[in-house]
């Protein structure tokens, strides 16, 4: 299917995050000196008859040291079906790719663990993220 590679930003300050939880996650990685890239690669999931891309998926983070992609979602479980389907499709088409999904509960528990009550509360109040990236 193929993929599109985007040049990573130099640092967190240069990165425009789509969601506040992504920025918090980047801060956490920076704190522990873990190298990361934000949405460095878009995986093509489906093409139309003329070869145009009709479905794609850009995982939020890539950790080069771990060769691991991370997708974060604050969507409610009942709204996560489409994202799960995309992840399944990505794993089918790109079986060598390591990707982990951190769901709403994972992220909320992580924020609580680090004492970040405001961020945990924000996840509670979050509506579905844009699922079309």
């Amino acid at each position: 299917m193929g993929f599109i590679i985007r040049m990573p930003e130099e640092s967190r300050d240069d990165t425009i995050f789509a969601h506040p939880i992504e920025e918090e996650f980047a801060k956490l990685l920076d704190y522990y000196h873990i190298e990361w890239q934000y949405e460095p690669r878009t995986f093509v999931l489906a093409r139309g008859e003329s070869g145009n891309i009709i479905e794609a998926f850009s995982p939020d983070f890539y950790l080069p040291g771990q060769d691991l992609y991370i997708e974060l979602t604050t969507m409610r479980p009942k709204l996560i079906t489409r994202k799960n389907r995309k992840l399944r499709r990505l794993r089918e088409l790109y079986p060598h790719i390591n990707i982990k999904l951190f769901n709403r509960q994972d992220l909320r528990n992580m924020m609580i663990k680090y004492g970040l009550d405001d961020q945990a509360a924000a996840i509670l109040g979050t509506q579905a993220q844009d699922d079309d990236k």
Partner: protein
Amino acid sequence: MSAYYPPEAYGELTEGIREILITAEEIEARVLEMGQAISRDYEGCNPLLVGVLKGVVPFMAALLPAITIPIEVDFMAISGYGPEAGNDGGVRLEKDLNVPIAGRHVLFVEDVIDTGLTLSYLLRNLRSRKPASLKVCALFNKSRRRLIDIPSNYIGFELPALFVVGYGLDYRERYRNLPFVGLLKPEVFQPAEE
């Protein structure tokens, strides 16, 4: 007869627990097995056991007498990520080891491996000091949320990726003294879902 008080003796702490996942007796038995394995593997090596404060304290206290060979022990402490940590400066070593570890066989003892972020930082730090060997022993493992791959040599129990407390695991510094591990009731740590 168990050496621990029954769960109900812990009053309001136990009231915050939805379900006991691992009993004190199960932990005790598993720690003995881990101690036996370590005694076998490190025979003649005089290993240095290194723990990171504070969560490891109950595990380390139980593990030490379960090991039947000569060992030494030391502790480290690091700053944790959080609202009061001054996060932009990165993680800081708040207490270093008292002994050099170059050429020593080091066994890093941890209460739980979760994302692996803290442990990976500490292992990188220790590796830079050129120990003869460096292995990891953790009582609990939450592999579901692992971000950093940690080669762990001794694992006690696998835990679900949920809020669990007891036996060193805390919520806001509480529950560490429970001799068992339990699921925290959601109402203790979060408001009701809207």
